[in-house]
């Protein structure tokens, strides 16, 4: 009951005196005054595409009723008691309705769904959150310093890289769309913090409706411009609404964030395939503005979020290994939902230098071209071009959904490349790779699952291991010099022995299982699946950092990524 109340009825602060945005405020400060207009714009466009064609309209209504009845019958909750009757009665009447009634019903459904999606933005909550969030997170890490200098803890743990000055300049010239890699449910929180400390604007983003059931998170989400995505709803109209809502927001100049991977990387590998739905909404926003002669460009910021320790590592890799990634699209029982794991995680993070690095990559236009600080799209040799040319046909900009879908696929490919280049390899990932490669090398012919059962059975000479770590690190630095990937400061600066000890100390004591332990001069491998998770970040580089003797093992590791 409370859950439903919180997810359906947002808690908002009373408005005694409405906030009047200043010209210097980020675009989202205008959201509340535009919200009704945005909702009606989305409703109008959806209805306009369906209304002229009775067959299409009828299919949409039937699809909505069918999927909602199925969902509510499974849910068997209060919402089901309220709404099931409506949908059952509707599905019986659709065929008998005349055109006017069908259109009226469509309008009602679409309006309700769009209102449910649309968020809110309260500048007072935003101001409070930007001051309190670092203190709260820092406080969880170091409770004794909650009142004093807790935010410093966060600064030590979170590092932000990238050409921030260029992004700060671009934020006033067009819509920025941040498209990060996705490893953890903490991603949106740390990313919001990274934007804040970098002087970048707050963003609009879609958050799973399940997050709104926690009263505190719900309050912040409702008031910080997040829009709600109910992943249980399978209705195709609802998916259209989500995409169009995102598109309209970008068209209107709201900076946005979405995770193109769609869900957290179960394997720990860098995303190579991205989902095209929301990405396409940003491309179409660019086209629509061009057709309307509105000079508001759209730029994508490929962003990598790199953790030395991942809160949900064990659940994610287990899920990947069980090949249930699809079936368990929404995992609700992982470490993210266990508050004691949060405390354990943050406590661990506080002692870690640079535990999380966020790298904002160089911005690109919707066609994958790099962009300079003035927002000009550039060719590989630096010539400025007009991106509007991409959507022209015989000299005139036109909307063409199939063409834009093709551009979106191309953009997805570019993002996947950029994720590799902008990934910052962390100490635990490099150490895990060398350990896992040794495991593969010492068990020739064995399959992955047989290897994963070898807990505590493989011991490696510490000195040899450190030598291999040093060589792998040198090769990674050489790749970094060529722009293929990046490494963290810790990876660059630590001695191999320090790297090894650091990684072991990070893992042990946080994860339930032990990745590896030091026993005298030997390093004994514990749970290979944990090593697999962390080392998977290096899959694309395995061959490049292997010696001739390690090449066979490296090829096997690289092939782990071949069928993703």
């Amino acid at each position, binding site marked *: 009951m409370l859950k439903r109340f919180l997810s359906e009825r947002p808690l908002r602060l009373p408005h005694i005196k409405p906030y009047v945005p200043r010209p210097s405020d980020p675009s989202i400060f205008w959201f509340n005054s535009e919200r009704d207009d945005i909702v009606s714009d989305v409703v109008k466009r959806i209805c306009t595409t369906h209304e002229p064609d009775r067959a299409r309209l009828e299919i949409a209504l039937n699809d909505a009723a069918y999927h909602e009845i199925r969902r509510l019958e499974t849910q068997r909750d209060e919402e089901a008691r309220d709404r099931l009757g409506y949908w059952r009665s509707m599905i019986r009447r659709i065929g008998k309705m005349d055109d006017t009634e069908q259109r009226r019903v469509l309008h009602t459904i679409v309006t309700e769904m769009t209102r449910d999606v649309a968020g809110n933005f309260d500048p007072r909550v935003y101001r409070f959150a930007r001051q309190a969030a670092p203190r709260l997170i820092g406080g969880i890490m170091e409770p004794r310093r909650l009142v004093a200098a807790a935010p410093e803890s966060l600064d030590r743990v979170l590092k932000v890289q990238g050409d921030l000055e260029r992004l700060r300049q671009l934020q006033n010239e067009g819509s920025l769309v941040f498209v990060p890699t996705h490893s953890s449910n903490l991603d949106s929180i740390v990313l919001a913090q990274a934007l804040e400390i970098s002087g970048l604007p707050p963003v609009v983003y879609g958050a799973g409706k399940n997050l709104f059931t926690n009263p505190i998170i719900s309050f912040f989400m409702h008031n910080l411009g997040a829009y709600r995505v109910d992943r249980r709803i399978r209705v195709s109209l609802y998916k259209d609404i989500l995409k169009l809502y995102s598109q309209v927001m970008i068209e209107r100049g709201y900076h946005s964030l979405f995770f193109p991977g769609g869900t957290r990387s179960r394997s720990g590998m860098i995303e190579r395939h991205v989902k095209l739905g929301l990405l396409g909404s940003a491309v179409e926003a660019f086209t629509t503005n061009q057709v309307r002669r509105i000079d508001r460009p759209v730029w994508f910021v490929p962003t990598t979020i790199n953790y030395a320790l991942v809160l949900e590592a064990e659940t994610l890799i287990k899920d990947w290994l069980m090949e249930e990634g699809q079936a368990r699209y929404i995992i609700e029982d992982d470490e993210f939902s266990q508050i004691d794991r949060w405390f354990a995680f943050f406590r661990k993070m506080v002692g870690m230098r640079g535990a999380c690095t966020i790298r904002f990559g160089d911005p690109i236009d919707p*066609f*994958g071209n790099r962009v300079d600080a003035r927002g000009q799209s550039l060719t*590989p040799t630096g010539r400025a071009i007009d991106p509007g040319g991409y959507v*022209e*046909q015989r000299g005139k900009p036109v909307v063409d959904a199939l*063409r834009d879908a*093709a551009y979106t*696929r191309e953009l997805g490919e570019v993002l996947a490349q950029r994720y590799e280049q902008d990934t910052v390899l962390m100490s635990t990932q490099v150490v895990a790779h060398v350990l896992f490669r040794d495991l593969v090398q010492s068990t020739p012919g064995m399959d992955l699952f047989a290897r994963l059962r070898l807990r505590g059975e493989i011991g490696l000479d510490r000195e040899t291991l450190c030598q291999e770590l040093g060589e792998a690190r040198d090769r990674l630095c050489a790749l970094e010099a060529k722009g293929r990937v990046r490494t963290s400061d810790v990876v660059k600066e630590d001695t191999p022995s320090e790297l090894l000890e650091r990684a072991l100390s990070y893992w042990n004591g946080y994860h339930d299982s032990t990745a590896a332990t030091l026993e005298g001069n030997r390093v004994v491998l514990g749970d290979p699946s944990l090593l697999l998770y962390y080392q998977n970040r290096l899959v694309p580089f395995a061959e490049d950092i292997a010696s001739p003797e390690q090449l066979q093992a490296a*090829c096997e590791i690289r092939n782990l990524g071949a069928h993703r």
Partner: protein
Amino acid sequence: MSLRVGVVGAGGFGRAIALASARHGHEVVLWSRRERDLPDPIRMSTDVADIRDCELVFLAVPARHAVEVAEQLGEVVDGRHSMVHVSRGLVGAELKTITQVIRDKTVCRRLGALAGPLVADALAEGRPSGAILGTGFPDLTGMVREALGGAGLRIYETRDVVGVELASATVGFLTVVLAYGQEVGLDPSTLAVLATRGIVEVSRIGQTLGAKESTFMGLAGLGDLIAAVAGDQRPELRLGRALAQGVDLSNAVGEAGAYVEGIDVAGHLIEHARRLGLETPISSTFAAVTEGRLSQDDAIQALMERRVGKE
């Protein structure tokens, strides 16, 4: 509606595209480094800037020149241009396709690869033929049909661009193998097994590079190979026959009369497959024969002795 068509490269295929486009009433400019005689109304140009005004550009240069030419085009093309290549090659050990090269060196994104059993003479003379265009952009297919199609040419479409490019490149190599087999007197049934299993072998490798198996079984793969076996007199056939007659590789390439992309491709494909642990019996055996590491008889015996599995 008349299109402004640009053709890059004045080889057999480049000229054929220019002739076909001009025949369909389009405004055609052919860019080549050297001045050539071309029939009216095709305009010859040695200045790459003349490509700037073209909306559809055909790239008809061998893969080994693709990087350099793409760099030059990169200085004049932008988002308004559409580009289609007809190369049968791949670039470098990393097996880069030509569309990948164009993407790296230019800002052109509306790209396509034209392949299949289409040969230059048939295109130039407007004889009935067919081809496949790999592109993600349906409007590009419309433009290419408008430029080259008509009653004489059926241009099919697929979104599997990389599949078309890999199939086209690997068929070049398989053609050399089959011509070799014909010349040494293999039975038609043996040739059929060689062709069919050869397609399976290259499609297996292609799939690791993102291609679809079905593309290898269509016009870009099997269709193109059938045209070669039927004897369309392409240089790969001459190369295969010369090798079978005992001519060494460098001289055989000379006898082929034109550059054969398939030989470069084969070496890189074998190396790529080896790294991934894929079996490439036909390609590897043929490479061993051409390099003199295996005799003809031993090669056939080695292939026949392999364990037979499911198709």
